[in-house]
Every structure is written in C-alpha cells, then in structure tokens.
C-alpha cells in the first residue's frame, strides 16, 4: 500500500455559532485520486481551508508526509507540497501565462534579472506536461476559464506539489476540455501525486477516482473504494436518512397563478428556456447545485440582468423587468444571497436599511419622514422579532439571522406579490433558521407567492409545496413537495430521468 501523503484525524472547526466540521477523518495516499462528495454546506470547503492552512482547525491532527504539523500557515502548506486549484483562478489577468507561472515559482527577491526565454520554456514545458494547448505568451485575460484552470495546475505542478486539491474543476468545462483535464489528472496520479477531487458529477467520480469520501453536516459519512459502491448508495449517503428538523406545515391552499415564466433566458448569465408557474400562497422551492443558475434566474426576475428571451407574466400581463426599480414597481422582491454585501448595508441603521426599497412609497416628494420610518421599522422589528436595541442600531451589529430579518423586512415593506428568497438561512444559527421558516410559511399563508432558493436539501424538501430543480442553467424537473431527497438530488446531479416535469 502506497504511503500516506496526508492524514487528518478528528478535525473540528466552528465559525461563531455554526459547527462546520465535527471530527472529520480523512486520508490521501500517493498516486490516488480521492473524491470528496457532499451537499453544499456539508463542510467540503472548510476541510480544504484546513488542509491549505487558510483556517486553523479548533481541534484535531494534521499529518503531512508522515509528520504532524501544527499551526499550518498557507505558506507552510505550500512548502509542504499542498496546492489548491480553485474554481475561480487567482491569476493576474493583464500578465502573460509564462509570467503568471513565474510569479508563483520564482524567488520573491526583486533584484534579479528576469530570464524571459527560461520563463517561457518552463511554462511551455509545464503546459505540455499537462497537455494544454496554450501559448505561454498569451495574456491570461484572453484565456477561457478552463484554460486558466490549466495554468493553475501548471503552477501547482511546477511548484512540485505532492497534494493537489481540485475544487469542482469541471464546473465550467466543455466535454472536450473535461477529457483533457481527466487525462491531466490521470497523469498526476501516475506520477505519484495525490489528488483530492471535489465534484458533484457522479459519473466523473466513478470514471476518475479511486476512493470517495462523503461529508454530511460536517461529518464524514464514510470512505469507500469506488468499485465497491454504486450511485444510488452515494446519493443515499449524501442526503442521509431522515429530515432531522421539524418544518412548519403548509397551511395555505395555492390560489391563482401569480408569476409565470415561458422559455425565459439570458445569454449573459447562462440561463436558458426556463418555464414554470408560481401560485399565490405557494412556496416554490428551487433546488440545484451551486452554479446551476438559480441565483442567475433570480437576478433576471429582479431586473439585475434583464432577460433577453422568453416572456415573464405577472397575473396574466406580460411584463418587462429592466431594472430592480421595475421589479419593485411590479411587486417582485428579491432577498439576495450575499447578505453582507447585497442584503443590508452594514454601516447603516436598521431603520434606513428597512426603508431602503420603499423610498418612493414611504417618502412622497422625496422628503424623509422620520416618524413614518420609525413606525414602519418598529412594526417589522416586532413582527419579525428582530433582536436589536433599537431602530438606530447599525445592521452590522446584529447577528446573521437578525441581519437576514432586516433584509427580509426591507422587501416585505414593498408589499410584494412575489418574494424570491436566495439562501435565506445560510450562515444563520438553528434558532433563527426555524424562525425564518415560520415567517416564510406565514407569508405564504397571507397569499404571497414565494420562490425559495436553497442549497440546504432538507430545507427545500420541508418548506416547498413544489420543487423546481435546476441544472446547467435549465429547469430540469418540477417535483411535488413530498418528493424524496434522493429524487431531488438525483435530478440536481443529472442522474434521474431528465425533465420529468
């Protein structure tokens, strides 16, 4: 048995009130491809951050090449031969490929001659080794995303990396590019490198990996050789057996169709031909993996990236939504995914955050009316049980769950008929999470059409009356609310009978 390049024992890590890893064991041997599988939020990215030294674990042991390391820093990890290829490569766009590789590999001393021929030669050599057809002279900004990933791999190779982590490397690749990449990964394996391969595509895992470890809720559910396990077993491992949390029951009877999409698409954001209806009083869940196009669809409906194909109907009237302003005027509200950057303005008081989208309604003639603002804010603070010392508290001083409530209140104040919520419970503690669930149910009961985008599968299953599943920018299935987790996951992974709408 080949030696262990990396061993993790009993790794735990929490962020504030969220436990991201609870005692994970993991190991990687020389010359193997070890796939890491799990839903979004299962702890994969945290595990990577621990291995690359970006985050220190709270507890547990890291053994790299037989030596126990403590206080691993990104620099030390790199020296020990750990390299990570992210989905979004961190390259210098205006510089050439050869230079990008050189900046990673050459010493950091400034007073030396730059040997351009040697730089180009080394870059060309590394690129040939991974079979990439890229000229070292090309500027990185002219490369496609997959080509940039290949450059990253070349960097890792050039640095003599023994442990290469690939985070969803094929997410944006074409078929042909995928095969190229697979060949590169196989070459790496044959040369004795250990590859940690993260992917949502089960077929890739079966054709490429030697072993697979499944993470769920920050725990390792098991490590198996790929030839001893099949797809349905993997899906079972990912979703678990029971839905642990109690979700508030659906009490509303879906009414008339409020929003209906017909073949809606947007070339710039990669959403194609999406059609579905949402009724008043209904929670329509949107499931799918990261990058499946759910947030992109929400941005289309909200006018941030207007649709360029298909039609959007609101209560039987065809509408165009060119800007968020249009969306607000038509009663479409969007609680964005990135709460801290888009959902609230951290430096501003709760009151100003809550009234931000209703300036025109609340302040006729543009004059601020502090009394009205305060009343509205106090109402929402009470209704949504926002825990803060007052309407003047800056949003940044609140906990994540309460910030989310402020963001939600901003949109409820617009009195929308369609409410899109994007990952409303991400990074929120358990108590606030079930509060938000109750609020969403209550809103549906009042006749709102709610579109709930969530990567938390139990949440989608527990909250939705119907579930739309997206994959690669398309809506691939619309399933009833009581579907099983494995059906939804299979649709999201593209395994099941496609388009069972």
């Amino acid at each position, binding site marked *: 048995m080949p030696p262990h390049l990396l061993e993790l024992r009993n790794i735990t890590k929490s962020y504030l009130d969220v436990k991201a890893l609870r005692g994970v064991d993991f190991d990687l041997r020389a010359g193997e491809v070890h796939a890491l599988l799990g839903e979004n939020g299962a702890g994969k990215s945290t595990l990577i951050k621990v291995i690359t030294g970006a985050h220190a674990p709270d507890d547990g042991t890291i053994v790299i090449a037989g030596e126990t390391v403590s206080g691993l820093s990104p620099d030390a990890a790199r020296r020990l031969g750990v390299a990570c290829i992210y989905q979004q490569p961190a390259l210098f766009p205006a510089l050439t490929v050869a230079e990008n590789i050189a900046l990673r590999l050459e010493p950091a001393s400034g007073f030396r001659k730059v040997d351009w021929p040697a730089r180009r030669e080394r870059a060309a050599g590394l690129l040939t080794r991974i079979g990439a057809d890229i000229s070292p002279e090309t500027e990185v900004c002219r490369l496609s995303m997959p080509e940039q990933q290949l450059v990253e791999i070349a960097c890792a190779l050039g640095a003599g990396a023994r442990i290469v982590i690939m985070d969803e490397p094929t997410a944006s690749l074409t078929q042909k590019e995928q095969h190229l990449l697979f060949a590169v990964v196989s070459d790496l394996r044959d040369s004795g490198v250990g590859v940690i391969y993260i992917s949502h595509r089960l077929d890739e895992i079966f054709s490429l990996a030697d072993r697979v470890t499944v993470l769920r809720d920050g725990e390792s559910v098991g490590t198996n050789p790929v030839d001893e396990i099949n797809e349905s077993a993997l899906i079972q491992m990912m979703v678990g057996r029971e839905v642990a949390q109690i979700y508030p029951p659906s009490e509303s009877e879906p009414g008339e169709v409020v929003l209906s999409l017909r073949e809606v698409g947007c070339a710039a954001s990669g959403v194609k031909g999406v059609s579905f209806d949402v009724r008043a009083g209904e929670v329509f869940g949107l499931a799918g993996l990261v990058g499946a196009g759910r947030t992109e669809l929400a941005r289309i409906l909200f006018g*941030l990236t207007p649709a360029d194909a298909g039609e959007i109907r609101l209560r039987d009237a065809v509408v165009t939504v060119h800007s968020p302003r249009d969306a607000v005027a038509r009663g479409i509200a969007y609680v964005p995914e990135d709460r801290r950057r888009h959902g609230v303005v951290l430096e501003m008081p709760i009151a100003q955050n809550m009234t931000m989208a209703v300036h025109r309604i609340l302040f006729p003639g543009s004059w601020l009316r502090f009394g009205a603002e305060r009343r509205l804010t106090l109402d929402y603070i009470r209704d949504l049980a926002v825990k803060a010392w007052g309407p003047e508290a800056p949003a940044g001083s609140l906990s994540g769950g309460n910030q989310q409530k402020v963001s939600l209140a901003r949109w409820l104040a617009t009195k929308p008929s369609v409410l899109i919520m994007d990952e409303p419970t991400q990074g929120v503690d358990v108590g606030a999470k079930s509060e938000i669930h109750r609020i969403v149910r209550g809103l549906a009961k009042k006749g709102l059409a709610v579109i709930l985008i969530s990567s938390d599968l139990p949440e989608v299953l527990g909250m939705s009356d119907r579930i739309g599943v997206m994959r690669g920018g398309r809506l691939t299935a619309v399933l009833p609310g009581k579907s099983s987790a494995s059906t939804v996951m299979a649709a999201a992974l593209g395994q099941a009978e496609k388009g069972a709408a």
Partner: protein
Amino acid sequence: MSSPAPAPLPKTRRVPWSHEAVLFLLLGMEWFYFNSVGARFGSIDNTFDILRHSVEIGLLALALTPIILSGGIDLSVGSLLGLCAIVFGKLWRDAGVPIPVAAGCTVLLGALAGGLNATLITWLRLPPLIVTLGTYSLFRGIAEAVTHGVDTFTNFPSSFLFLGQERWMGMPAQAPIFILVAVAMWLFVHRTTYGRSFRVIGYAPEGAAYAGIPVTRRLALAYVLAGAIVGLASIIYTARLGQARADAGTGYELLAITAVVLGGTSIFGGIGSIHGTLLGVAAIAVLNNGLVHARQPREVAGLLTGALLLIALSMNTVTAKLSLWRQRRKARASPAPQPPSSSP
C-alpha cells in the same frame, strides 16, 4: 443562541458627530487664539470679511460633499469656475445679454459641464478621478482659448458688483445666497431620499443596486448639481473681484476637497455631513484670515491646511490600525500553546 449584542454603540452615527465636535473645538481654539493675537480679528467687520471671502470655496465644498459622500471625486470644479466666469463675462460684454439672463445661462452651463463628467463616469463607468482630471484640463483650456489667456472682463455695472462687494441688511450681499444654498444642501443631503441614496452608494454601490436604488441616475444628479453650484459660485466670484479671468478659481478644487475631508466626510464615501463641510470651510477660512491678522505670511495658512488635511486623514486610519494591531498581538499571544497539546 445569538444575543443581540447590546454593548457596541452605533458607530456610524457616533464617529461623524465626534469628528464634527473636535472640529468645532478646533475652530473655537483658532478663534480664541487669533482674537488674542490680532487686534481687529474678532470684530463684526472682520467676521463678515471672512464670510465674504469663503463664499466661493464654501459653495464648491458644498457641491463636492454629495459627490464624495457617494464615493466619487470631482477635480474639475476649480477649472469649471474659471470657464463659467469667462462665459458669463463674454455673454454680458460681447453678446450684450442682460446680467440676470447671463447668470442663468452660466448656471446652466455649469450643469451641462457637470453632465459631461456624469456621462463619462456613469455611462462609460470610468474612474471619476481620471475623468475629472481630464475635464480639469479641458475646462481651463477652453477658458484660456476663449480669452486668448489675457482677455479680462471688467467694468461690470455697480448694481451687479453690489452682489459681491456691498452690504445688504448689514451682512455681505453674497451671504444670503450662500446661506440659502447651504440650508438647501443640508436639507437635500440630510432630509431627502436623495441624500440617503448617496450614502448608500458610498457605503455599498452594489448593495444600492440590489435595494432598487437607481445608482446611475443618483450619481449623475450629484455631478450635475455640483456643476450648477459651481456656475453660481463663478458669478459671485466675478462680482466680488469685479472681473472675470481665465485663471479664476485656480487651485480651488484642492481647498474645497480639503474642507470636505477636514469636515469629516470619508474619502471612501458613506460618512459625512453638510454641517461638517461648513465647519471645515470655516476652519480653513478663519485660519487664513487669522494668520494675516497675526502678521504671518499667507503661505503658512496653505502649509497648515495641507498638514491639517493629512492629520485629519491619518487620525481615523491610525487609530483603526492600532486597534487591529493590538487585536493581532492578543490573538498571537493566546492560541499559540493550544494546538500541539490538544492532539489525542
């Protein structure tokens, strides 16, 4: 479970107020000092003199406050003042346009010039710094070209010069205009949704778009409004000096930006106030005037203004850096013994 952290005070509100309080204190100290040094400094006449001389810079600073509040900058205001003054003079003397009409056209021209900045900044999404650097050169260049660098417009009727040189109800005649603009700007920035929008854009330009705020239109408004106010300032400037020249307002952009930043408006946007800007203008104006009364050369005032700006800028950053450094030192000291001992 999360508890709603009751301890931290609302920082966004506290910082500008404390900044303005410090500035107020500084202003008081300046006043007290110069009053004890210069014989005539504290007199009503001199106070009005200070006011008279700070109206144009004050208007420019007021115009710049919404722009800087929204995270932008406008370096072209001084040059635009020169261009507007020239066009005003040209309209009156060469085209024979009556003064009130000429004044209206000048304000309109200012707004148009602001519109040029706004178009390039919002439509092409170019950095405001470099766009206004270009128009800084362009506006002054046009002014010089129109006048051939030497033509000066003088001999304005005394009814017009009254605006810049005489008293009206005891105070300098331009003071009521300035007070009117200041009050209007204060209401605009602090009491309307527009001012609120500038702040949101300054703090989080993307977040503003997500909140349905028309970012492009708001930014354009800030630059156009600034242009119009500069047009107004150019008329007052001409009336005060009794002449319009192509080099009018040279270097005013620096003084105005200094006043705004000194007044507590963050150059990164979001934080700031009109009353802070007014205090900043006053601090600079009193310093200038007081040093003359203290028989110090005029240059010392410029020197102190530059130094004051640097200190005002550094203060926030240095305190933030210090606390961060302390935190890091604390963090480095505490968790070090933990990892090795905790392995099973």
